[in-house]
């Protein structure tokens, strides 16, 4: 008799009370979980926001709104001088992405476990490259390169290139790992070298996917290159910084509008580009 309870015997028919009790217990368990979560959140809010904030500096809500209101309005006179930096931003993004693509080739080659030349060494090496590139924020990369090559667009291009490796290489390596081995075997069977296998057996299979990843990364790089100027790496960020420092808040809004326009353009372009690629 003991094991009829343990195994779900079909003879045991649940009554309404059973069902209601188990549903209620379920609900209480969930309630307790969410209450715990809520307590944790409230505690962090208390520590980070309430205790840390300089409420005297903020003053009343009215003052905050007043401060925010300063940004409402566009300084149209600034737009002619924004054209140059906007083009510069776009170009930094393009060059950075392109350089990133070149840097990616070894990373993707080493990082795909089906074609990596010497697995115990090259595979972890490539993975390390990808993680390093992704875990450091573009601002930090830019600072680093500004220190190395001086102020200007070159530091921005290098920062974006290095920052792009992680994502492009990771996605490309995954695409390479997922290829159909048939064509590779076919090229090998005709006596092709390793290089020919890559060019004829692998590249055609992954090209559409890789191209769409590149376009995607390019779109993100536009967004990034717009702020690199904050640390002296050229483009719209520099103008933004200057407007901020001269308290020309309407000018700040104008720069943001310019960034938005550029990103919108990038999004439209990448939408059509990915459509034609796939």
């Amino acid at each position: 008799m003991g094991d009829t309870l343990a195994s779900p015997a079909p003879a045991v028919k649940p009554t309404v009370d059973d069902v209601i009790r188990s549903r209620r217990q379920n609900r209480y368990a969930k309630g307790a979980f969410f209450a715990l979560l809520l307590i944790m959140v409230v505690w962090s809010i208390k520590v980070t926001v309430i205790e840390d904030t300089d409420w005297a500096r903020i003053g009343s809500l009215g003052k905050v709104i007043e401060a925010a209101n300063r940004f409402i309005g566009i300084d149209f006179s600034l737009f002619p001088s924004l054209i140059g930096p906007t083009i510069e931003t776009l170009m930094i993004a393009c060059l950075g992405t392109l350089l990133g693509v070149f840097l990616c080739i070894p990373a993707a080659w080493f990082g795909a476990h089906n074609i990596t030349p010497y697995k115990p060494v090259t595979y972890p090496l490539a993975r390390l490259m990808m993680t390093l590139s992704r875990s450091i924020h573009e601002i930090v990369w830019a600072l680093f390169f500004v220190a190395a090559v001086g102020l200007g667009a070159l530091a921005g291009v290098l920062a974006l290139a290095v920052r792009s490796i992680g994502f492009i290489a990771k996605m490309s390596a995954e695409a390479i790992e997922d290829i159909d081995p048939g064509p590779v075997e076919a090229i090998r069977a005709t006596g092709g070298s390793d290089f020919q296998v890559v060019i004829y057996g692998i590249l055609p299979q992954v090209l559409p996917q890789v191209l769409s990843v590149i376009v995607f990364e390019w779109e993100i790089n536009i967004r990034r290159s717009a702020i690199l100027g904050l640390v002296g790496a050229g483009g719209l960020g520099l103008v933004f910084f200057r407007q901020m420092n001269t308290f020309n808040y309407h000018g700040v809004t104008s720069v943001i509008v310019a960034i938005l326009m550029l990103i919108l353009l990038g999004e439209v372009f990448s939408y059509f580009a990915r459509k034609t690629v796939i």
Partner: protein
Amino acid sequence: MAVLEVRDLRARYSASGPEILKGISFRVEADDFFAIIGPSGAGKSTLIRCINRLVEPSGGEILFYDREVTKLRGRQLRMLRRDMGMIFQEFNLIDRMSVMDNVLSGRLGYTSNLRSLFRAFPRDDIQHALSLLDRVGLLEHVDKRADKLSGGQRQRVGIARALMQNPKLLLVDEPTSALDPKISREVMALIKQMATELKVPCLCNIHDVQLAMEFCNKIIGLQDGNKMFDGPTKEMDQAMLDQIYDMEVL
């Protein structure tokens, strides 16, 4: 009084698209088990879905207990849908919820937002769900997740969910085409039995003529959006069937 009266129903999916239903009229009486048969693409599914307005008809009238339903909106439309149970071809169960929650979801039209957020259904509903699950023979699977059941069992859950609404009309959309022949017959028998017992008229759209002839007392034959036949099952003959299925390319 007819349960449902449809007059000159027309439907199209887009303003410039082809007309799917080209003026359909029929009446459903209180004790009817209606079958809608016809080749695929004849508009059977669209017809069923027009009645509870999952598809918007583009013209014509639908009277449900003498109430015009094509103009209903918002809350009134939801009240109408609450009165019509629907059983689907692909079961359309909530895969990641338990059988019990699936059956109880039939009561949503009667339940407040707050209660449905916490899934706190009233005791009466749970009692009702249990008795329905007992009737369809799934009582021991109450706490199983819906995607762990077999096709036949899932359709039984679907039947229980539709009956949970206390419907005044059952709309049944190809209940058997995702099931194998033996299970199909069982499921049809179950629907028929429950409908007779609860005195719910049924409108059942079915591609299997054999099952239609066996279980239904009236038949509508559709072909390319036109009604070809409407009458008691015994008046249906081979010549008529040939005519209805004439255009189906085999």
